[in-house]
């Protein structure tokens, strides 16, 4: 079984302190309708260990609010518009 520590590889995405990470997640969850999720990853730091957990999938359950799915070229939560996956 992988140790949490050694399993983590360097990631280029945004790394934020815990509160800021969580505030960002809560913001996106609230402002966007449920089911509409932005792509990108946020690294959260818990107990001093950076843990990537937010590999958000692009899920679109509420098409009405967004009108057209093909418009969802989400550049995500990465700081400089770098998108992963």
């Amino acid at each position: 079984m992988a140790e949490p520590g050694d399993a983590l590889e360097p990631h280029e995405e945004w790394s934020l302190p815990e509160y800021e990470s969580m505030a960002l997640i809560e913001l996106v969850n609230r402002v966007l309708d449920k089911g509409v999720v932005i792509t990108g990853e946020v690294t959260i730091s818990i107990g001093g260990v950076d843990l990537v957990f937010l590999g958000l999938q692009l899920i679109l359950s509420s098409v009405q609010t967004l009108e057209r799915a093909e418009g969802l070229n989400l550049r995500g939560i990465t700081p400089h518009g770098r998108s992963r996956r």
Partner: protein
Amino acid sequence: MAVYLYCVLPADAPDPAVSGLDAAPVRALRASGLTAWLGDVPSTPRPELDRIRDHDRVIRSAMAAGITPVPIRFGQVLADDEAVRAHLAQRDYARELAHVADAVEFAIRVIDPEAVAEEAGARAKPPDAPSVAAGTGAVAADGAAYMRLLAERMHHSEGRRARALDAANGLDRALAQWVRDRRIEPSERPAGAAVAHLVQASAAHAYEARAKELSDDYRPLRLVVTGPWPPYSFVG
């Protein structure tokens, strides 16, 4: 052009004094005893993080002015002002405004660090992936071990979900004196549970202080309290 809806406020709400999506102006429209804060947009905007922040900033500016609006989720576009008037007449915003009046939302995430760490590990590399170098027989044994591990993980995660939800419900009871309304649900990412509380604005400090004090009671689970938020979770 189309009309983008940010939030709905009482009739006597002031005009907005903030810019909206992509720095575009925000204006007020009054009808049906309500005020809507709107912007004019060329088409339905795509949800990008900057725009999500713009959207939230407009709604927060109402909160900062001492009015709790009914926040609209990102991306609500209507054809024109006439369509907005029809929309205001149709949905019972007065009831929703009364429900959230003088209140703010707080979020508490119950995070299970062990589950988060395991998930991060699983994502970085598969658990004990069968080793080709170990030879054919060893691969089969490793394959069985792999399946066992997957099953164990599933069992683990069920127990963890229950533990996080128990904590969320415990928190809810401990904070109940300040809570006007609540939403409690399991959270996948981060693994744990999500609590949303609608709290009287004047009690926000007392609520927040108590919520943070309680954090120690739930170790090894971690609690992250964010807010105050506009009452996104308590409308619609």
